[in-house]
């Protein structure tokens, strides 16, 4: 690994983590708890939206976030590891 590539890899990694964690915080802490009451005025199916976010919606988003992270990191690994077969 040549030296300037490592900081770049790390910077892109942390930027990705930051973006995904913002989504994580929005769906769980903001939409499902802090803003639950206003959101409950909207409905999804037969449920109030805020309640649905807290009990179902946020969990679906959590699963998606982890797989998005793993896929994106595969891309980064490929970019920075010219030949992944070698150390």
């Amino acid at each position, binding site marked *: 690994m040549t030296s300037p590539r490592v900081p770049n890899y790390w910077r892109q990694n942390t930027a990705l983590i930051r973006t995904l964690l913002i989504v994580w915080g929005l769906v769980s802490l903001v939409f499902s708890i802090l803003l639950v009451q206003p959101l409950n005025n909207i409905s999804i199916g037969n*449920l109030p939206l805020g309640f649905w976010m*807290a009990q179902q919606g946020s969990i679906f988003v*959590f*699963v998606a976030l982890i797989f998005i992270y793993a896929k994106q990191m595969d891309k980064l690994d490929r970019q920075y*590891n010219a030949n992944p077969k070698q150390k």
Partner: protein
Amino acid sequence: MTVEVWTTIFVIITFMVYLYIGWRSRVKDSKGFFIADQGVPAIANGAATAADWMSAASFMGMAGLISSLGYDGSIYLMGWTGGYVLLALLLAPYLRKFGKYTVPDFVGDRYYSNVARLVAVVAAIFVSLTYVAGQMRGVGIVFSRFLQVDVNIGVMIGMVIVGFFAILGGMKGITWTQVAQYSVLIVAYLIPAIAIAWQLTGNPIPQLAFTFGDVVDKLNQVQLDLGFDAYTQPFASKSMLDILFITIALMVGTAGLPHVIVRFYTVPNVRAARYSAGWALLFIALLYTSAPAIASFARYNLINTLHDQPIAEVQQLDWVQKWQTTKLLTLDDKNGNGIIEWTPTEETSDVKISPDIIVLSTPEVAKLAPWVVALVAAGGLAAALSTASGLLLVISSSIAHDVYYKLLKPDASEGERVLVGRIMVGFAILIAGYFGINPPGFVAQVVAFAFGLAAASFFPVILLGIFDKRTNREGAIAGMVSGLLFTTVYILGVKFYGMSPWFFGVSAEGIGTLGMLINLVVTLVVSRLTPPPPPEIQALVENLRTPGDAPLALADIGEEQLD
């Protein structure tokens, strides 16, 4: 055939499978015993993590708690799943890259200190013991109800089974047993969920039946009629701040639980660790998104079956009689009018039901076939046993690897290390059994403590160890000790010594969030006031941050190879 016969059949079949797997994957060396030879494919590791993670509390306690809390039960749903995002993004890949045996291993090496290692060992044992206490109780409850044996005998049967595969197979045996246990517990959870969803809404998929069916609507109405808050009403039993704190404490605690973290040491490489976390959460989400459906359906059914009915008739119901003998359900006609009245206040309500039995009793209340009821019992046992075995291994490896090998006898041979590991599993089982027979509280509540403690001790120290190069030995030790002490004192004070929850009314379950913040601040400040970590440690951190160096292979994650 009766429920009891079916239960016996299911329990015997599933236990034979677990024992066979435990025997097949028996190990001789320490790498196999502590981290399963790092050979577990991501998808299997995901299933094992899910089983390890979903305890008696998840399987039996959670839907029950949601059922009685309504919206406020979301703390468990979001808290116990959201932590996996933190784990997958912030901890798991780096810990795998570090690649040793235990969490205290990371703490000890990263902070170049045996004191830090020892603090981490104490925290790991403390957290795991708190947690395992609830599991053995769960085993006891299932046995006492379905095999009609004494709770204590149930606990002892559980001890023997866990002991067999944990002592013999170590991490390797546990991993493959947990894969089997995941299959049992998820089938056992989904079959009744699907049946009840079908029965109540005509839609067999619980997640869709919950969102698009009208049960929650009707339940809201019934609750209001009885004088409760509406089921979907937020902050009925807890303040918004408390909900926020508890959710964060459960999330961060999940990410910091040693028996979950250690599961990411058992995969072949960093890439597999990332996917493994995804699979784990997907498998967990299957149960966790069904739980709110079960919770609302169960409450609706229970109220309809019990409220406003003649007590003499209800007493005739088979499941009512059997749960009454366990004292987890009591029916008491307080005003003597012969009719059961379910009201929000304990003094006037004729029904008292423990949240622990909601899931176990749901199939019977819904009048499902006896084999479904029995399947749920086998699933509950799988959930409790798989988690108990994961925890026992953390306790044993913390002592055998970190204390005995790293601190006391660095020249110990392979054989000695595995032997000490096995003896320690045995000891841990005895302690867990003691807690099962003398339970310190009801299942889900005890588990909540473990999260606060894990949040306040491990999460900050690992996070900063990876993301802040400047964090040093002095900071880490001061942070862990202050976070752990604060959280322990607050929890013990509020729960046992009548202390008022003085921090804006935040309950004992949520205080781990503040403990974590205290830990973070203390670690950062103390680190800056003391000398930076030595160059070789900075190089170690640098190395954790570089791209994965292991070859990407088909077997890693159970899907196509990268081009």
